[in-house]
């Protein structure tokens, strides 16, 4: 079986914007406990058929004994980043679970979610059932705004800092982050608005990063998992729509 890509790579009726600003969409299925490396390697060997570019994901631990003046570093392999030939579909296959990522052009949720579920089914057929500890849906958007003159952030974003009198203005960059629990949906939200390296000449680029996670009583059965992810996506859309002004949405309508 060949895993389907999240294609089509153009706007579809499933999503309202002709040129969605998503630069990274991710669905995460994280385990409560770590898998062993051999199991991950076996799953990666299968997934590499469709995602042939493989890079090791690793973390470095540095231990220093100040009294002895000695130290040592250890590198731990956590899994692999696997990229499909066109570069738009990516997996992070790790000991703590699977993350399915889509880079632009964003095809809309139905295609992306169906693709992610296919990959999950293949992954699970190899690693077997393990208890889910967290589900995540994260959308990183990059919003490019023409800016040959100073711009007022409130014209574009409903989530932006207020600058008290006495601080220099105009400002050069922004980084705002909030986190909140949504108890009725058992979700946690992390929302970031930040300036980024301008992607286009004569423009400002802003990153709007919406990360929803569920660690409280996450569902374990596949149908329940995908229903929960769908609900998280609905909440993500609501956050997106309420954070941006109509003027901003017009850039990608």
């Amino acid at each position: 079986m060949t895993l389907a890509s999240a294609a089509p790579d153009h706007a579809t009726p499933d999503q309202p914007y002709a040129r969605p600003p998503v630069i990274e969409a991710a669905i995460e299925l994280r385990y409560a406990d770590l898998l062993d490396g051999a199991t991950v390697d076996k799953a990666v060997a299968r997934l590499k058929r469709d995602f042939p570019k493989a890079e090791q994901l690793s973390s470095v631990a540095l231990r220093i004994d100040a009294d002895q003046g000695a130290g040592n570093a250890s590198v731990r392999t956590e899994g692999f980043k696997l990229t499909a030939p066109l570069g738009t579909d990516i997996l992070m296959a790790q000991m703590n679970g699977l993350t399915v990522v889509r880079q632009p052009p964003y095809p809309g949720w139905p295609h992306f979610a169906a693709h992610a579920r296919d990959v999950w089914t293949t992954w699970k057929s190899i690693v077997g059932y393990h208890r889910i500890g967290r589900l995540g849906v994260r959308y990183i958007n990059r919003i490019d705004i023409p800016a040959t003159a100073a711009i007022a952030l409130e014209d574009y974003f409903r989530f932006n800092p207020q600058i008290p009198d006495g601080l220099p203005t105009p400002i050069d960059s922004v980084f705002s982050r909030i986190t909140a629990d949504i108890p009725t949906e058992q979700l946690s939200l992390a929302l970031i608005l930040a300036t980024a390296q301008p992607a286009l000449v004569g423009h400002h680029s802003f990153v709007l990063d919406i990360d929803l996670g569920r660690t409280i009583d996450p569902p374990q059965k596949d149908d329940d998992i995908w229903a929960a992810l769908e609900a998280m996506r609905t909440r993500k859309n609501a956050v997106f729509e309420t954070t941006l002004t109509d003027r901003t949405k017009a850039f990608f309508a």
Partner: protein
Amino acid sequence: MTALLAPAPPARRPPAPAATPSLHGATPKAVAETPNVARASTAAATAKPLEEALFDSRVDLKVATSHLAMHMSRDWRDRLFAQLDRMLDPVEWTAGDSLPIGGSYATFLRAMLYLKPARRPGLGLTPDGHIVAAWTRGPDRLSMEFRPYDQVRWIVSRMVDGHRDNGAGTTEITRLPDRLASWDLQHWFALGDIQPPA
């Protein structure tokens, strides 16, 4: 007071120097967040067989292209991908040449989106890994070599009144239209036949 953001800088600059150190360290890392690709820590690249290195380079450039896909037509993106496949074809590759430099390719994409040439250029690569775009119109030729941080070296050669005129220079993307004004950019960028200068 609402936040006013200064006008966009004319060109990309290298990253600002690190902040003043603090005992409290940097911005606290989120405890539980969905991983993202850009921040994933991949192991240092080891020497790869040429074919694998070329494949990986093709994927890297396509990923960079995809980040601007919302500003590109699908036709253009498809054509660009085909050009990258040819440019980095193992059969055509010259041993010893450098793989494309990411910063050079970023400047190429930014320049194309800024200049918006209706005629797409041919693409090439210098031996040290810089992207080159070339337009030809009869005996006339314009080529641009893209450097990181929006720097562009250009070379132009054009027949005018039976004489060959040549020019060259280095500038930033935003200054290209001015610097090349006397060479008539549309001579290369416009679709269809162009009449010789009166």
